[in-house]
C-alpha cells in the first residue's frame, strides 16, 4: 500500500476506498490459492489463512507509510500483502523456493521484506512484540519519523512479554501500535476461556491509548489506526487497537473438522452477515463509488494475477543444496 491519505478529502477518500477494497480482494484471493495448494498437496507443511480478517491488515496498513514497520504472525499473509509484498515471491516462499522472499528458508510463518518494512512474520505467539517495539525505538532514536505496528492474535494476550514491552513503549514514548486481532479462537479454544478481565484495560493500565473497533469494517479500522498511528508518529506515545474479527477457515489449512470447538452456524453467521469484503462492496455501490461491473473486474484481475503468481512459484526451482549453510551469520 502507498502513502496514507488525510481523511475527509472526498476525492482521496474514493481512491482510498477502492484501494482498500482491492487489497482486501487480493488477500482473499491469495489465501484461496493457498488453500488450493494445500488441497492439491503442493504445499510443504501447513498454513494459517487470513480469510475473514482482511479488513484488519488492509485498514491498518493503509494508514501506514511504505517505510513504516510491521511485525506479523503465523497468520501473516494478509499483513504481508497489505504492506505491499508481491504475491509471486510470497507463493514461492510458501513452497520453499529460491525465488521466495526468504529464499525458501522461512516459509509461510516467517516471510519478511525490508523493502516494505516487514520485519517478519513470527511463529512464536507474541514473539515479535519486542521486535516491533525495538523498531519504534530506532525510529525515535534515529529521528526517522517511522511508526511500527505489531500485529498479533488475541492469544498473544497470554504472553507476559506483551506487558513488558507495552510498559517499555509507554516509558520511552515509542511510536508503536499494538494491533490485537481478536478472531475469538486461539487454535481450538475460545478466547473467553483463556482471557480474564477486560482486554482494553490491559493496555490502558500501562498508559497506552487504546481503542476497540469492528474489525470487519475496513473504514473503521483505517480511521482508528490512522489516529493512533499519527499520534504515535508525533511522539505522544504508543497505542493499542483491538479489532474484533473472525477467521472463516480452520486454525490452519488442515483443521477441517471444527465442530468440537465452534459451530458451523456461528461460522455461517459471520460469513453471511459480517463479511468485510461483501459488506464493503455493498457500501461502495450504495455510495455510487463503484458499480458491480467495476468490482467484478477488480476481482477478475486479481484472480488472474494470483493464478499466474502460483504458476510462477510452482515452476520455480528449490534452493541449491549449498544454501542450507548460508545466511546463518551475516
Amino acid at each position: 500500500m502507498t502513502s496514507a491519505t488525510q481523511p475527509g478529502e472526498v476525492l482521496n477518500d474514493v481512491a482510498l476506498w477502492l484501494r482498500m477494497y482491492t487489497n482486501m480482494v487480493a488477500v482473499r484471493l491469495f489465501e484461496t490459492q493457498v488453500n488450493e495448494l494445500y488441497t492439491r498437496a503442493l504445499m510443504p507443511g501447513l498454513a494459517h489463512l487470513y480469510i475473514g480478517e482482511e479488513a484488519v491488515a488492509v485498514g491498518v496498513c493503509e494508514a501506514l507509510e511504505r517505510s513504516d514497520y510491521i511485525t506479523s504472525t503465523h497468520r501473516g499473509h494478509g499483513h504481508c500483502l497489505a504492506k505491499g509484498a508481491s504475491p509471486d515471491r510470497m507463493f514461492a516462499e510458501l513452497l520453499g523456493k529460491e525465488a521466495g522472499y526468504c529464499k525458501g528458508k522461512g516459509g509461510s510463518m516467517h516471510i519478511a521484506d525490508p523493502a516494505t518494512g516487514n520485519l517478519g512474520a513470527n511463529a512464536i505467539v507474541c514473539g515479535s512484540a519486542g521486535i516491533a517495539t525495538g523498531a519504534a525505538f530506532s525510529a525515535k532514536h534515529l529521528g526517522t519519523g517511522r511508526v511500527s505496528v505489531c500485529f498479533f492474535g488475541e492469544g498473544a494476550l497470554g504472553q507476559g512479554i506483551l506487558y513488558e514491552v507495552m510498559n517499555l513503549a509507554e516509558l520511552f514514548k515509542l511510536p508503536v501500535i499494538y494491533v490485537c486481532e481478536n478472531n475469538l479462537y486461539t487454535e481450538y479454544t475460545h478466547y473467553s476461556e483463556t482471557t480474564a478481565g477486560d482486554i482494553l484495560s490491559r493496555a490502558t493500565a500501562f498508559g497506552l491509548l487504546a481503542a476497540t473497533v469492528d474489525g470487519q469494517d475496513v473504514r473503521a479500522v483505517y480511521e482508528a489506526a490512522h489516529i493512533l498511528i499519527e499520534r504515535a508518529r508525533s511522539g505522544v506515545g504508543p497505542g493499542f487497537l483491538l479489532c474484533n474479527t473472525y477467521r472463516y477457515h480452520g486454525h490452519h489449512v488442515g483443521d477441517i473438522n471444527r465442530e468440537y470447538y465452534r459451530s458451523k452456524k456461528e461460522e455461517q453467521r459471520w460469513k453471511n452477515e459480517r463479511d468485510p469484503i461483501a459488506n464493503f462492496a455493498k457500501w461502495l455501490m450504495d455510495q455510487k463509488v463503484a458499480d458491480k461491473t467495476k468490482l467484478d473486474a477488480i476481482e477478475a484481475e486479481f484472480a488472474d494475477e494470483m493464478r499466474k503468481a502460483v504458476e510462477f512459484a510452482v515452476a520455480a526451482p528449490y534452493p541449491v543444496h549449498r544454501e542450507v549453510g548460508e545466511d546463518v551469520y551475516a
Partner: protein
Amino acid sequence: MPETNAAGQRELTFAQAIREALAEEMRRDKTVCIMGEDVAEAGTPFKVLSGLLEEFGKERVLDTPISEAGFTGLAVGAAMTGMRPVVDIMFGDFITLTMDQMVNQAAKIHYMSGGAWKVPMVMRTTLGATRRSAAQHSQSLHAWFCHVPGLKVVLPSTPYDAKGLLKAAIRDENPVVFFEDKMMYKLKGAVPEGDYTVPLGAADVKRVGEDITLVATSSMVQVALGAATLLEEIGISAEVVDPRTLWPLDEKTLIESAKKTSRAIVLDEGYERYGVTAELASVIATGAFYDLDAPVKRMGAMHVPIPFSPPLEDATVPTEQTVFEAARTLCGR
C-alpha cells in the same frame, strides 16, 4: 483401538502409549493433572491426549492461556504442595519461555531448601525436525535441560519405553522433562496392558552387534536401526544403544558397548555443537579410551536454524544413509 502384531502382542502407537500411561496414572493417583494449551477438547494438535478430558474432566485436564512461563510456574508451585502436574509444552521450541521456571525454580528448590520442599512434576514436550515447520517449530533443545542439575531428562524411542518411562517420570519425586519426537507419534510397537515402569537411568540395547556401536536417542534410534540393517548387508554388525534417559545417564552400558565394538557413533537430533553428542562422545572417549580404534564420531543436527524448504531441511538431520556411510567409513570399508 489397539492392534495385535504377528507375535500376538498388543500394539499401540507412540501417541497411544503416552495417553495410556497418563490415563493409568491419573486413575491411580488423583493428584496427577494435565495442563497446557489446547489439551482438553482438542487433546493437543497432535491428538495425543484425546479422550482424557472425557474421562477425567475439566478439573484435571486444563486448557491454559498461551502462557508457557506462567503455567509452568503454576505447576512448580502445585507440585510443591501436593499435586503431580504434567505440563504440556506444545512444541519443544517453546521451552525457551519456561527456562526460568524450570531452571531457576523447579530444578533448584529441593536443593536450595535443604531438602525441605520437592517438585514432583513432569514437563512433556516435543523435539524433531522434517515436518516443514521451519526454524521455530523444529528444534531439539533437550541438551539445555541435561546441563542443569536438579532436572531429569527422558527421551523415549519406542511405544513400550514411552509408556513405562512416562509412568516412572510421573512417580518420580523430581522435575522430569519428557521429550517426544513429533514424527514418531504414529510409530507402532508392542505395549503391554496395565502397569509397568521403565526405570530412569537404564540404557537399552536395541540391537546387539559386534563391529560398531551406534548410540542413538529418540528419533535417531529408528535411524540407527535402519542404518544397522544397511550395514548388515555389507557385513558390518552394528550394536544400537539407546540411553533412554540422558540424565540420569547410564554411562556403563554405553562404555561397555563401545569397549566391545571398539568403534562408536553418537546420534542425536539436537545440534551437534555443545549438545548431547558432545557429552556422550566424551563419556565414551574417556571410558573406552584404551579400546577405541577410531575417534568417536558425532552426528547431530547441522549448525543452522532449521530451514523451511524441504530439500534444505532434509539435509540438516542424520539419515539412515548418512549414518550408514559414516559407519562404513569408521569401519574402514
